[in-house]
């Protein structure tokens, strides 16, 4: 069955460092992969989309890579700030490519 895995343990880093979060998937051949941010008590917010023919995508301090051979995406936040503390979710298109299926998310904590 299709499975999306994100590290369930919180990632703690110091301000200014680069945070790297991992999303692994099995039994998928996704046309694209997305990353969302979720703050406590709020709905997820879209951050970045990367297509299967793109190796890397950047947006300000964010960088996403997509390795379809390894079936893995890495999400990087450079020069991290305490305001980056949140849960980050990866999402893939499900059956029929229309519904999005989400990973369980990884909580990031950036300490001053």
């Amino acid at each position, binding site marked *: 069955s299709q499975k999306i895995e994100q590290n369930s343990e919180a990632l703690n880093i110091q301000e200014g460092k680069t945070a790297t979060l991992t999303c692994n998937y099995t039994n998928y051949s996704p046309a694209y992969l997305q990353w969302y941010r979720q703050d406590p*008590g709020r709905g997820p917010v879209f951050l970045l*989309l990367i297509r299967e023919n793109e190796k890397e995508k950047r947006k300000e301090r964010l960088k996403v890579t997509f390795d379809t051979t390894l079936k893995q995406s890495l999400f990087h936040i450079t020069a991290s700030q305490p305001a980056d503390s949140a849960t980050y979710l990866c999402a893939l298109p499900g059956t029929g490519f229309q*519904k999005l299926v*989400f990973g*369980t998310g990884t909580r990031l904590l950036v300490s001053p």
Partner: protein
Amino acid sequence: GAGVSQSPSNKVTEKGKDVELRCDPISGHTALYWYRQRLGQGLEFLIYFQGNSAPDKSGLPSDRFSAERTGESVSTLTIQRTQQEDSAVYLCASSLLRDPFSGNTIYFGEGSWLTVV
């Protein structure tokens, strides 16, 4: 509207009662989704509406759950005979789906927090 609007934002109900949760998608968005998120858990897909096509109900956990959508506007998620395990945030999202391969970015509401006591 400016964003996806959900109501009520909080609902406490007694076990066995029925509840209705409402979602107003972003104007013009043809696709609408319901997800459930239990405390500390990931998002569970419940149901997906796209235009006049038959909805994808594959995520509904039991026949106590149903959802309707009026055209391309408001949707209502109904939970009958609520149980304590139904306690969760119910998130609605909408998107402007052009084609499945263009990248289906979805926009979430803030959710309806349901507590069954």
